């Protein structure tokens, strides 16, 4: 838990001048403590065949909550008791441990590969139960149910929507025989349960979720040149969207799903275009002999942020979605590229290079302040979670690329455990995927 102590207490004492003490004493509190909410997540009870439940629900919840940076779960070995239902909860026991909240639950086997998952959330301070739910789930749904429970707990205690029950898409490179294999995968937001949606012998890059979470656009070199396809995730149906001369790259969906912003160099050098996905008509947004690429649509659909080196080095610029004069946004450092918008449209995550290291930074568009969140040397491809609280990105671990998540305040960082292989370009799905 982080603590900020500043001596800023203002005391207003009324009523001391009268003999009768009738009015209340007024005390002003001008400072609090910054830190994660202390919470205890007790291993769920298990009723069924086999020694243990097929998934450790409590561990998934605990990991989710701590990854958000907003909670500080008690380590298992500090738990003094293991209640699984409300009647077994003794509040004073938990008060001694200084936790604000308690999560307990149980899993019961109801059939072959069928379960019921129940959980309850308690307020230790007030000594009350806050919420409790019960879900039926098949074997393969257990992890998603756990993430859903994490979302419910998160919402109850922070007032914000949880983004644990969401997915990510990313590119993985493995070696098979002597040659490389490139795959596009969709996994849970904690990296588990990956599913391959495309496999190729040639590079794949720049995946992008549509706003409804049903499609992914990406760049593929399967025809020995860069081309943009869109693919329906559920069915696997693909459509070739752009195969112009030169570069076809960096697709980004408009919030209404009707257009894609993309990079084409058919007119001589990389420029930003938008394309109506239905009619395939193109509209050119930049006319500049410099590199203009990596367009990303603002959540309100009114503007596009992109990377340009028209000023001498890669920086972020913003232009109206229907075209116009581009306005420069970044002035800190010599390299700012690969932007992603926060869901509320007020922040931009980017790759920020300074002094030979490439890190993830966040620019606050209201204040213009840039804040570096990571401390790697080769961090790239940042992507906001749909509730704007976390950023997933690619980093390097020795000889291969891995994914990591960092909370937007920079306080908490965690590597995602994925299977072996070189993993890159993660993109977080919208809600309800």
């Amino acid at each position, binding site marked *: 838990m982080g603590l900020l102590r500043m001596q800023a*207490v203002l005391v207003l*004492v009324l009523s001391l001048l009268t003999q009768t003490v009738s009015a209340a004493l007024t005390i*002003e*509190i001008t400072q609090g403590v910054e830190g994660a909410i202390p919470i205890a997540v007790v291993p769920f009870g298990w009723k069924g065949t086999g020694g243990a439940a097929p998934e450790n629900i409590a561990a998934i919840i605990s990991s989710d909550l701590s990854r958000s940076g907003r909670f500080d779960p008690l380590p298992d070995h500090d738990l003094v008791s293991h209640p699984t239902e409300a009647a077994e909860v003794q509040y004073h026991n938990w008060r001694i441990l200084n936790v604000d909240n308690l999560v307990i639950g149980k899993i019961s086997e109801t059939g072959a590969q069928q379960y019921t998952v129940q959980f309850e959330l308690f307020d230790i*301070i007030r000594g009350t139960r806050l919420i409790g739910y019960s879900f039926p789930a098949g074997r393969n749904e257990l992890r998603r149910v756990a993430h859903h429970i994490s979302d419910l707990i998160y919402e109850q205690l922070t007032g914000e929507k949880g983004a644990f029950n969401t997915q990510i898409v990313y590119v993985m490179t493995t070696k098979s025989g002597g040659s490389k294999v490139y795959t596009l995968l969709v996994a849970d937001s904690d990296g588990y349960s990956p599913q391959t949606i495309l496999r190729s012998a040639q590079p794949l890059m720049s995946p992008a979720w549509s706003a409804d979470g049903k499609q992914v656009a990406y760049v593929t070199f399967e025809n020995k040149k860069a081309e943009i396809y869109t693919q329906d995730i559920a069915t696997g149906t693909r459509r070739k969207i752009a195969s112009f001369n030169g570069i076809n790259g960096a697709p980004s969906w408009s919030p209404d799903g009707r257009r894609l912003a993309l990079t084409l160099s058919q007119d001589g050098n990389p420029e930003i275009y938008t394309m109506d996905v239905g009619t395939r008509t193109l509209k050119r947004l930049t006319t500049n002999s410099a590199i203009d690429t990596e367009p990303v649509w603002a959540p309100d659909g009114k503007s596009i942020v992109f990377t340009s080196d028209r000023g001498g080095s890669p920086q972020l610029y913003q232009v109206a979605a229907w075209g116009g004069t581009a306005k420069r946004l970044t002035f800190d450092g010599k390299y700012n590229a690969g932007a992603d918008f926060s869901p509320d449209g007020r922040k931009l995550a980017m790759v920020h290079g300074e002094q030979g290291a490439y890190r993830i930074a966040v620019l606050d568009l209201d204040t213009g302040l840039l804040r570096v969140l990571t401390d790697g040397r080769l961090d790239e491809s940042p992507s906001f979670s749909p509730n704007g609280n976390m950023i997933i990105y690619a980093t390097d671990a020795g000889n291969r690329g891995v994914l990591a998540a960092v909370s937007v305040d920079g306080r908490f960082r965690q590597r995602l455990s994925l299977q072996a292989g070189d993993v890159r370009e993660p993109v977080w799905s919208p809600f309800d995927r």
Partner: protein
Amino acid sequence: MWQAIRENPRAVMYAVLMHLILLAILVFSLDWTPKISRPAGQKVPIEATLVDPHQLEAAAEKRRAEERRVEEAKHQVVEEEQRKQAEAEAKQKAEAEAKQKAEAERKRKAEAKQKAEAEVKRKAEAKQKAEAEAKRKAAAKQKAEAEAKRKAETEARRKAEAEAKRKAEAEAKRKAEEARRKQAEAELQARLAAEQAAAEQARASGIVNEYVGYIADKVRRNWLRPPGSPQGLSCEVQVSLIPGGDVSRVRITRSSGDPIFDRSVETAVYKAKPLPLPPDSSLFNYFREIRFVFKPTS
């Protein structure tokens, strides 16, 4: 040394001056004249020619007698003068005195006359007065007799009334007296109590302030501020305490508009209980109801 002189020119100058003065004094105090004793008043011896000493003596004697005679004559004249003057003065004095005496006599006579006249006047007035007095007395006597009569008539009536009144008044007076006495006593008590209370307050406000600080500190330490909350939020909570510092009631009196912020504020108060209170239980009244205003400044 030269450096010292350069650095302190004034001091050196004074020193030298002093030395010179001292030297001068020394010099001038020495007697440079050769020692010749010369008694005062005596004339320088003169060169005398030879002369017969007896002749000298006779001449001298003659001269001396002459001188004596002149001297005496002078004296006589002077004395005569003086005597004459004294006589004149005495004469003047006598005349002045006589004048004064006559004047005084005259004054005295006049006064005596005035006195006699005043006396006569007084006598006459006194006589008048006496006559008037006698008249008045007679009339008064009459009046008094009539009055006495009337008086006697009303007297009885009045007496009865007065009696009753007096009784009532006496009663009221007694009561008032009693009340006044009581009030005076109460005021005295109150004054004493007030003095005591003032002294206590001075002591208590110090203690109360101290514990307000402890309470604020404990609540602050237990307030996990929600990180996502917007700037400028403020929330007021009314907290009722029971002796010992436990919280019997927490009530949001002014919401911040953000339920999570409000809840965090409530939680802070709950987590901070029991609130630290001064050991002197007579000060508990100051802390019975506390209004917390949560208003983060950053």
